[in-house]
Every structure is written in C-alpha cells, then in structure tokens.
C-alpha cells in the first residue's frame, strides 16, 4: 500500500500537468462549439429551408456518431485529405468542438424557442433589422438562460477529452495509463485520475455558476436542467 501511495505522490505532478492539456482542449472545444452552436441555432430557427436542412444534417451526424470514431475519421481521414496538418491537440479541439457545437446548437435553439415570440416582434416593431434583433435582443437573453445547460455540456466535454489520447495528445487519462503500465499500480492511479476529473468538473461548474450569478438579471428562469 505504501508503494501505491508513493507512486501517486511521485506521479501527481505529471498527472496534473496533463490537466493543463485537458483544460486547454476543453476550453478551445467549448469556444469553437459556442460559435458553431450559435450560428446553427440561429440558422435553424430563422433560416430558410435549405439552411435548416443542412444544419439538421450536420447535427444528425455529429449526434449520431461516437467521438472516437469521429476523431479517427477526421484525424487520419478527412483532415489529411483536405491537406490540413493540424496537430493532435488542434485536431481534438476541432473535432470535440464540432461535436459539442451540434449539442450546443440544440441548447440554444431550445432557448430561442422558449423566448416569448413577442421579444422578436417588439424588436421588429421598433424598426430593428432581423440581424439587429437577434444580436441585441435574442442572443443576450438565450446565452444567459443557457448557462446551466452549457455547464452540463462542459462536464461532458471534459470527460470526452480523455479520448484525445487515441491520437496522442497526452492528457490526464493517457498519463494515468502510462504511469500504471510502468508501475503496475492501476487501481490507485485510476482512482486518482477520477478525483482529478471530479475536482476539475466541480471547479468548472462552480466558475460557470459564478458567471451566471454575475450575469443574472431579475426575473430570469433557466432553460434546460
């Protein structure tokens, strides 16, 4: 048991360095997904039939195919064919970003639909263009409402980032495995990894809750759980 303990102590700095990579991937993916999600959600609600069809197709595929599969496909296949020589880190961030983008699109779309229709009408009634109405009236409201659902998405992506290892970005899970293979202390190391993830999730969710509080406006209810 003492050897398990000393292995954990010894490897902790190495594992914790991995959490920077993990957080880097998660942050880039979430931001990328935010942009994708907003564009898609707006397109899905206000776009014409053609736009809606394309975006729905995108969401269908990215919701239907596991991230590992997408990662292999893009990293070894599509990116290569397109001549994009992304690093492992960038590739993971982009693929996870495209995936969470599909989910975020659904979150934002739900939020837009949950807004009273009068909000858009009133903006139009004042002479705002559709773009102005979406930018100044719709988005500020739905982004606020979506923070809880978004923090859910964050915790999912945080854990999905462990898949980064299949293409060689050495984040927490990969490092755990490396140390375990060398030391044969699998169980204690996996438990340690579990705790690190738990703390990261907790910290992230807490930070988002802070943000939500800061942005809070009297009388707001949330969309999603």
């Amino acid at each position: 048991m003492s050897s398990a303990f000393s292995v954990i102590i010894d490897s902790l700095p190495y594992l914790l360095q991995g959490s920077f990579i993990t957080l880097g991937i998660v942050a880039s993916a979430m931001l990328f997904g935010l942009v994708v999600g907003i564009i898609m959600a707006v397109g899905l609600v206000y776009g014409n039939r053609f736009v809606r069809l394309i975006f729905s197709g995108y969401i269908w595929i990215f919701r239907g195919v596991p991230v590992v599969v997408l990662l292999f496909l893009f990293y070894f296949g599509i990116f290569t064919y397109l001549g994009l020589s992304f690093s492992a880190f960038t590739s993971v961030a982009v693929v996870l970003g495209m995936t969470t983008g599909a989910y975020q699109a659904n979150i934002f779309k739900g939020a837009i639909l949950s807004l009273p229709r009068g909000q858009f009408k009133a903006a139009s009634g004042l002479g705002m263009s559709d773009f102005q109405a979406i930018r100044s009236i719709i988005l500020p409201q739905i982004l606020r409402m979506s923070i809880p659902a978004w923090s859910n998405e964050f915790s999912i992506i945080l854990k999905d980032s462990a898949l980064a290892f299949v293409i060689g970005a050495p984040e927490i899970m990969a490092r755990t495995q490396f140390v375990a293979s060398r030391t044969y202390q699998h169980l204690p190391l996996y438990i340690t990894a579990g705790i690190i993830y738990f703390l990261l999730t907790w910290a992230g969710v807490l930070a988002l809750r802070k943000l939500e509080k800061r942005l809070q406006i009297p009388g707001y209810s949330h969309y999603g759980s």
Partner: protein
Amino acid sequence: MNENSPILRVENITKSFADNTILNQVSFQLEKGEIKVLIGPSGGGKSTLLQCVNCLVIPDSGRIFLEGKQVDFSRRQDLYLLRQQVGMIFQDFNLFDHLTALDNITIALRKVKKKSRIEAEQRARQELEQVGLADKEDLYPAQLSGGQKQRVAIARALAMDPKILMLDEPTSALDPELIGEVIAVIKQLAARGMTMIMATHQISLISTLADEILFMEKGSIAEHGAPEILLGAGNNSKTRGFCNRLDELSGVEK
C-alpha cells in the same frame, strides 16, 4: 405632402393563415391627430390587422400608404423604416427582459437610430419622466408592475418619434387596479394630439377617446362610425350590443 391627405391609408388588406382567411379586404384610413378604436369579438382579426399595418405580419395582398408613399412589402429597408414610424404597444408589453427600463428605451435609439449613448439616454429619461417613471430607470422588467411595464413600453415607442401609435389591448393584461395609470398616460397622449389606432375592450377608452369606432368581426370591418352615433341610445348597432355586454360584465348591476 398635402395637409389634408391621410397620414395612413390601408387598402384592401387580405391575410390568410393556411386555409383560414383572417383578414378579408380591410380598408381604412387615419388622419393626423385622429384616434380610431378597433373593437369586436375575440378572433375577429384586430391584432392581425394592427400587425399588418406595420408589416410584422406581411399582408397577402392589399396596399399600405404612409404619408402618401406606398410601402413596398418586398423591400426590407422599407419595412424597417415603416416600423420606425409606426410605434406599437403590445398587450403583454414585450419589454426586453434582459434590459433595464432605461436600456429598453435606449437600445432602439442606439442601434436603429444610431444615436450616441448619451443622446439616447437623455431622450429616454425624458420619455420616462413623461410616463411618470423617472425613478424606475434602473429596474428590470421583472421588477416592475404590469402598469409600469406598459408605461415603459409606451415610452419606448414614443422615443422613436413615431408618426402613429398602435395599441393592441394595452390594458387587458393588467390587474384592475393598475389599469388606471395606463389609461391616464393614453389620455395624456390623446390630449397632445397623437395619432392613434387601438384595439381595446376598455369601455372608458372607447367612449371617451375614439373619433371613430371600427367594429371588426370575422376579418372584416362590420360597422364603423363615431361613438356618439354607434353607441347612441336607440341605435341598434352590433357595436352597441357588444359594448353593452362588456358593460354588464363589469358594471354594477342595478
């Protein structure tokens, strides 16, 4: 522009949703300073008509002239401009829930009229004062009572310097005790000579303010005329029957 030509002319507006014809060849016109009141049974098309006037709902056919100039329904810029000139007050206020009372007013001034923040705020404060809410500028819609919300909505519309104000049942979402404050503001607007068209069930507004009553039923204007005539004792109009029924429900029975 000829001083005597109507400020707004609506001609043969028709609108259907799916197979339902909601508005059928509706025409009317509005002179400067005139107040028209739309009444009639629920579902008669009052809201739809008002929304057609500023093209929040685009009519299937018909024409709209603002100050003698026809509005081209297919040109977005035309629509945006029309809506700036025709203010709209909704039954359920539709204040922007994420903005304070002040910002509810400034946002359109800044984004649409491209005014500076300072200018916009100055104007907004002025309008808030007019509706008696000078001290509430920092409150969010959720912190305002219904009557206060509706007054902010009115201030928001007025800040855009509209040529016409349209009000769609401005008091019907209010608690009976709060109706008074909104009615007072509307009467004050009338006194200042604002051109208005409003849908309402509020007898006190109908009988005291209306220059003309339009009675809408099944998508058409079934009757119209001055209130003295339509509501006059002995007149057998639909309008009078309808108003009497409204009256019975709310009035003290003797």
